[in-house]
């Protein structure tokens, strides 16, 4: 039986979330930004699983399934958007797509 305390598990999930957040803030390549968002989704779902195991309730696993479906939709839409951006701008740099910014 796993006897790792819940705090340690939560710290593990928090570290993964932090890595994803840092990646989202640092990288400018859109593929890498999307990957960072994936990592953050995954660590958030991991917290649900840890809580579900800790209190022996199935609700956390149900929530993880919903997170999984939301993630699948998000990835599909975001990759389609990335394809369109690449088609228009010929680059994946997020800073190149600033036509909405007021440059004056």
């Amino acid at each position, binding site marked *: 039986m796993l006897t790792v305390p819940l705090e340690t598990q939560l710290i593990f999930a928090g570290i993964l979330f932090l890595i994803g957040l840092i990646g989202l803030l640092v990288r400018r390549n859109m*593929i890498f930004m999307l*990957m960072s968002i994936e990592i953050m989704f995954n660590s958030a779902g991991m917290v649900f699983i840890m809580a579900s195991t800790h209190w*022996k309730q*199935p609700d956390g696993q149900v929530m993880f399934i919903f997170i999984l479906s939301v993630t699948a939709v998000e990835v599909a839409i975001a990759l389609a958007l990335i394809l369109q951006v690449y088609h228009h701008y010929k680059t994946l740099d997020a800073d190149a797509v600033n036509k909405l910014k007021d440059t004056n």
Partner: protein
Amino acid sequence: MNILFYIAAGVAIFSTIMAISGRNAIHSLLYLILSLLAVSVVFYLLNAPFIAALEVIIYAGAIMVLFIFVTMMLNIGIERETEKKWLNPGMWILPSILAAILLVNFILAIHTNIPITINKADIAPKQVGISLFSTYLLAVEIAAILLMAGVIGAYHLGSQKKKVKHRFLEKI
């Protein structure tokens, strides 16, 4: 038992850092797949084998394959030399070692975990299914609508439309 958790968590954190800090998108995606597999082992150790299987099938199987597809579509023609680079061992030796560590970890977990998986107090996939289709039935339907909208949206965004422009407007 606890050491297995720590090993899997260490592999997950290390491969996630490698995925974020890489230069080549494909290598980073392979590290990210490894990270998801490590997280799946963590789920298995947390007595959630159903979720561990879903993590492997949907995250590492479907979503990451979508990523790799798009990345390869975008990089086509730019890097002709990549295949030569992939064949040198420096690129794949570290992920292979990490994956081997994870495999040994998982096999050990299976061997030591057999009396636990039939424990009545644990959450079986059956319980998850019953809860999913009774308490959370409305949420399931909303998720279905979301998936439908996602399919239509991805199809609409992904289709390359021809430019419809009058010839007088072309010069402007």
